[in-house]
């Protein structure tokens, strides 16, 4: 029986807020920058405790990224905060030149990523950000799965020298990773060991995949579940080790198929071990207004989509 200890229900953005607050206490070089979304990003605690190290930029994201890059000259470790849409697409060229190409120690922290931003609709529901960020040389891309892991990831990236994109979200979701679990950038977590299919997921889709694994188990399917919290650098070894056993893969993410985790995994498989793969991700369309869970269902990134993809990929393997 698949069972996970649940440590409560919270949003991943709150994990970022707590992680940043802890960094404020232990690392005097950490500074925070926010573009008029301090409450939404849960940066208020850091702001309150470190007023000299918090910079309210206003609604001027390009200036925020440029300033963050400039702050690294002098040894600061800037954490920028705004919605994922305004953290990436709006400021892509600023990130490209002043952060990635210049290889500056900036942490771009992005909340409200993907469809689960919900009612605000497609203008704010970015589904292309992982792709944009992973294409940039020097940039690490991290998508933690729950509150605890987002907190640990926030703390861990302060010790990683170089640009990082940290992506998290708004909805309240179950917490299933341990509060003190060490976060290692680039090292995947194998959550379930199984033999019939490998499911590789990131972000909110890790919980959906746990639920899917339970349903599959009830049908006699043995699932190996990997939480791929770091999209770049990708843990190729973990993928190949698992796939050598299961011979088929489902990837699951709250992102476009194009540019996402699934595409990165497909690249690894194509080069090393060609096996069937199915993609649970948004297929070349914008979102719309709705509750987070309604949207996940409508756009095909819910528990049942993971189940269907697993059964399909196993059938392809056995065909």
């Amino acid at each position, binding site marked *: 029986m698949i069972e996970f200890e649940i440590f409560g229900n919270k949003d991943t953005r709150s994990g970022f807020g707590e992680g940043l607050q802890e960094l404020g206490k232990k690392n005097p070089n950490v500074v925070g920058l926010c573009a008029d979304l301090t409450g939404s990003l849960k940066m208020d605690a850091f702001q309150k405790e470190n007023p000299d190290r918090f910079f309210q930029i206003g609604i001027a994201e390009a*200036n925020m990224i*440029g300033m963050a890059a*400039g702050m690294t*000259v*002098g*040894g600061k470790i800037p954490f920028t905060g705004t919605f994922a849409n305004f953290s990436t697409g709006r400021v892509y060229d600023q990130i490209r030149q002043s952060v990635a*190409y210049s290889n500056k120690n900036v942490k771009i922290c992005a909340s409200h990523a993907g469809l689960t931003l919900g009612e605000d609709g497609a203008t704010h529901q970015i589904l292309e950000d992982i792709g944009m960020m992973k294409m940039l040389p020097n940039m690490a891309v991290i998508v933690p799965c729950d509150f605890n892991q987002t907190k640990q990831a926030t703390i861990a990236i302060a010790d990683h020298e170089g640009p990082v994109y940290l992506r998290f979200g708004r909805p309240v979701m179950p917490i299933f990773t341990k509060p003190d679990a060490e976060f290692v950038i680039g090292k995947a977590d194998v959550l379930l060991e199984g033999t019939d299919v490998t499911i590789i997921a990131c972000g909110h889709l890790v919980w959906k995949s746990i639920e899917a694994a339970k349903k599959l188990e009830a049908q006699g399917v043995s699932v190996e579940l990997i939480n791929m919290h770091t999209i770049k650098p990708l843990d190729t070894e973990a993928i190949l080790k698992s796939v050598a056993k299961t011979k088929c893969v489902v990837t699951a993410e709250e992102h476009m198929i194009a540019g996402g985790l699934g595409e990165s995994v497909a690249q690894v498989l194509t080069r090393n071990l060609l096996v069937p793969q199915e993609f649970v991700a948004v297929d070349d369309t914008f979102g719309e207004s709705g509750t987070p869970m309604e949207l996940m269902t409508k756009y095909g990134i819910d528990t049942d989509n993971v189940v269907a993809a697993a059964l399909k990929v196993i059938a392809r393997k056995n065909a």
Partner: protein
Amino acid sequence: METLELERIASQVRRDILRMVAAVNSGHPGGSLGCTDFATVLYFEVMKHNPASFSMDGIGEDIFYLSNGHISPMWYSVLARAGYFPTAELGTFRKLGTRLQGHPSTDKKLPGIRMASGSLGQGLSVALGTAASKKLNGDDRIVYTLHGDGELQEGQIWEAAMYAAANKVDNVIATIDYNGRQIDGDVDQVLSLGNLRGKWEAFGWIVLEMDGHRIDEIKATMAEAKALSGNGKPVVIIMKTEMGQGVDFMIGSHKWHGVAPNPEQLANALSQLPETLGDY
């Protein structure tokens, strides 16, 4: 430093610029020649800096960012002549494997450069970041930037301008290369800046003006800007220059923004500029 000596350095920098762009038949001589006198005064008279032991963090040093990165030949020459790296390396400009990339970069580790630039409009924000870092570090040195006038058409410049005044940033001195030209022609025709002094004043900056080709005036204005810093307001200098300054057939025309002289034109240009410190 004596004005005469600064003029001698500037003459050599102009020769370097022309020889660098001619050697690879690419690069941006117009704006480079126009900003030579300013950068010479900045590096040889105004800034406190350590060419012999460059550090990325620049603690205790004044820092300069070139926001209009396309005039890199001028910056590279000034950096080399100031002692950041051997002048012989100027001969590698824009060639495969060089540290002197077409636009300034940090990935090749060229001493003197702390941020890539080229895509316009980003340098003022970067300067504000470093200025904030200096304040947190208790470092009272100043951050200098240079911008093209055409570059002011980028919206990010005005985001940064608004931030600086609202937050009383007073350890940044920005300079505008006000030559009135950009790639497609006169700035007034492409997209007029209107009342530029009035715009900066409305954004809350102290505005100074200077002739960018009179060494004494640059020295005096930079000293005034420095004296005005530390008082709760950012300072900008609108610097009147001529694109192509120092070469009679290049001066005042946008046509030499991004075009290199051919061998005959190079010989003609060099004949107008004394070789004072020895060509690289």
